C-alpha cells in the first residue's frame, strides 16, 4: 500500500510545518497540494515526503523556497477582464459614494491583482481616498508584489486584458520597460499596506468596502473555505463587496445567506445591510 504510506507522510509533513513554523496547510485541498509536494520532492532532491519533513524541520532556510512551491500562483494583470470591467462599471459607482475606502487584496501573490485594482482606481479617480491592503502568507510573494516587476513578455497579454477591462489609457503609461522587465510605477503602491496575513489562522484587521480574493479559495477544503468567507464577512462593512475567482462561489459557506449576488457571472457578492 505505498500510497497509503504517502498519505500518512503528507499529513505528518503538514503537521510538522504547522507546529514548527505556524504555516497551516492542513485544510488545503489535498489533490493539488499533493502535486505541489511532489514538485517540492524534486526541487529539494528528496526521495520521500518523510525525508522532506526531516529537511524542513531541521533546516529553516529551505522554508521560503518550500512555501514558494506550495503557494505561488502565476496570475495576470486584469486576469478575466470581464471581472474588472464589472468592478469598474458596476461596483465603482457605489464606491464613489464613500469619502474613504479600504480595499483588501487577500492572497495577493506577486501583486498582479493589486496593480490591476490600483490602476483601475486611479483611472476612476478613487485612488486618493483609498488604502489598499495586500496580504499573503508567502514573504517572497509579498516581496515581489512590493517590487511590481514583471517579465516584459507577459505585458502584451496584460495590455490586452487591461484594454478589455475598459482601461481608459494605455497600460504602458503605468510602467517603464528595461532589460526585459516592466517595472510598474511605484506611486501605484504608495497607498498600499503589504502584510503577512493568513486566511487560515489570522483575524480581521480593518473594515473593508471591497475584498478581492481570486483563485485562492479553490485551494482550500470546504471547512477552510467557510472560515475564510466568514473572515471576509466580518471584515466587510455593510454593503461591502466581495469578489471571487471565476469558478469560486459561496455555495458551501454558512455565510452565503449574509451576502447577495451582485454580479452572478463575475462572482461579485454584496454583504447584506441587515445583519
Amino acid at each position, binding site marked *: 500500500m505505498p*500510497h497509503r504510506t504517502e498519505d500518512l507522510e503528507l499529513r505528518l509533513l503538514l503537521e510538522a510545518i504547522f507546529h514548527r513554523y505556524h504555516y497551516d496547510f492542513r485544510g488545503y*485541498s*489535498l*489533490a*493539488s497540494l*499533493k*502535486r*505541489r509536494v511532489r514538485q517540492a520532492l524534486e526541487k529539494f532532491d528528496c526521495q520521500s515526503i518523510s525525508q522532506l519533513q526531516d529537511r524542513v524541520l531541521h533546516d529553516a532556510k529551505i522554508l521560503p523556497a518550500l512555501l514558494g512551491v506550495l503557494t505561488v*500562483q*502565476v*496570475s495576470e494583470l486584469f486576469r*478575466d477582464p*470581464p471581472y474588472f470591467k464589472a468592478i469598474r462599471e458596476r461596483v465603482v459607482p457605489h464606491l464613489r459614494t464613500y469619502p474613504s475606502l479600504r480595499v483588501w487584496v487577500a492572497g495577493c501573490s506577486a501583486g498582479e491583482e493589486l496593480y490591476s485594482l490600483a490602476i483601475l482606481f486611479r483611472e476612476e479617480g478613487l485612488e486618493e481616498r483609498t488604502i489598499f491592503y495586500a496580504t499573503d502568507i508567502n514573504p517572497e510573494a509579498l516581496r515581489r508584489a512590493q517590487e511590481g516587476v514583471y517579465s516584459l513578455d507577459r505585458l502584451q497579454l496584460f495590455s490586452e486584458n487591461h484594454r478589455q477591462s475598459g482601461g481608459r489609457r494605455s497600460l504602458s503609461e503605468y510602467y517603464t520597460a528595461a532589460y526585459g522587465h516592466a517595472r510598474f510605477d511605484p506611486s501605484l503602491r504608495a497607498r498600499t499596506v503589504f502584510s503577512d496575513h493568513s486566511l487560515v489562522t489570522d483575524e480581521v484587521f480593518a473594515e473593508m468596502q471591497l475584498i478581492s480574493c481570486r*483563485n485562492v*479559495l*479553490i*485551494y482550500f*477544503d*470546504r471547512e477552510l*473555505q467557510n472560515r475564510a468567507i466568514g473572515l471576509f464577512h466580518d471584515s466587510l462593512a455593510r454593503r461591502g463587496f466581495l469578489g471571487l*475567482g*471565476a*469558478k*469560486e*462561489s459561496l*455555495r*458551501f459557506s454558512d455565510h452565503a445567506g449574509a451576502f447577495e449576488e451582485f454580479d452572478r457571472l463575475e462572482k461579485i457578492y454584496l454583504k447584506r445591510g441587515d445583519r
Partner: protein
Amino acid sequence: MNALPASLVVMGGSAGSLDALSVILPSLPDDFPLPVLIVVHLPPARESLLAEVLQRKCGLRVREAEDKDELCPGVVLVAPPDYHLLVEADARVSFCSDEPQLYSRPSIDVLFESAAEAFGPGVIGLLLSGANSDGARGLQAIVQRGGTALVQAPVDAHCPTMPRAALERCEQARAVPLSEIAQQLQELAHGR
C-alpha cells in the same frame, strides 16, 4: 488485485474528441451507474459551451464542474476552461490554477493522475482523439494504481497523436474502436 467495482470514469481528449464524445455519451444509458469527468482542451476563453453542447446530445446529465462538486452516478462533469480539474478522495472535485501542463489547462494528465491517486483500482480512464501527448502519463498512473485504461483506436480518431502516444507509453492500455467504447464502459461499470 481485488475485483473492486469501478467507481469513476475519467475521459480526456483534444482535437476531434468532441466528435468521439458525441458518439459515446449518447450511447450510455441514462442510468449509467458511475460519475464521469471530462477534460477537453479548449481555448482559455472563460465561458465554454461544451457542457451544453454535450447535454443536448445525451440523456445523462451534463454540466460544467464547479469547485467541490460531489461526484454523482450518471452525472457528467466537464472541466471549465483555464483551470485544472482534480478529483479528491472525498469524492468531490477541486480546481487549481497551477501552470499549464503540455501547454494545456485543463490538463488531462492532472485529472487522470488525481483520479488514480484518489480512487486507485476503481478508475476507468479513456483517452480520445487529440493532437498532443497529454493524457499518456495520466493513463499510466491509472494503470499503476490498478485502474483500467482505454484508448480510442487511433484508426478511428480524427487526430490519432494522443491515442498513439498513450498506447506507446502505457502498454496495458486497450485500443477500442469508437463504436464499441460505450459498450465497454458499461461492462466495466457493472463489474468486470
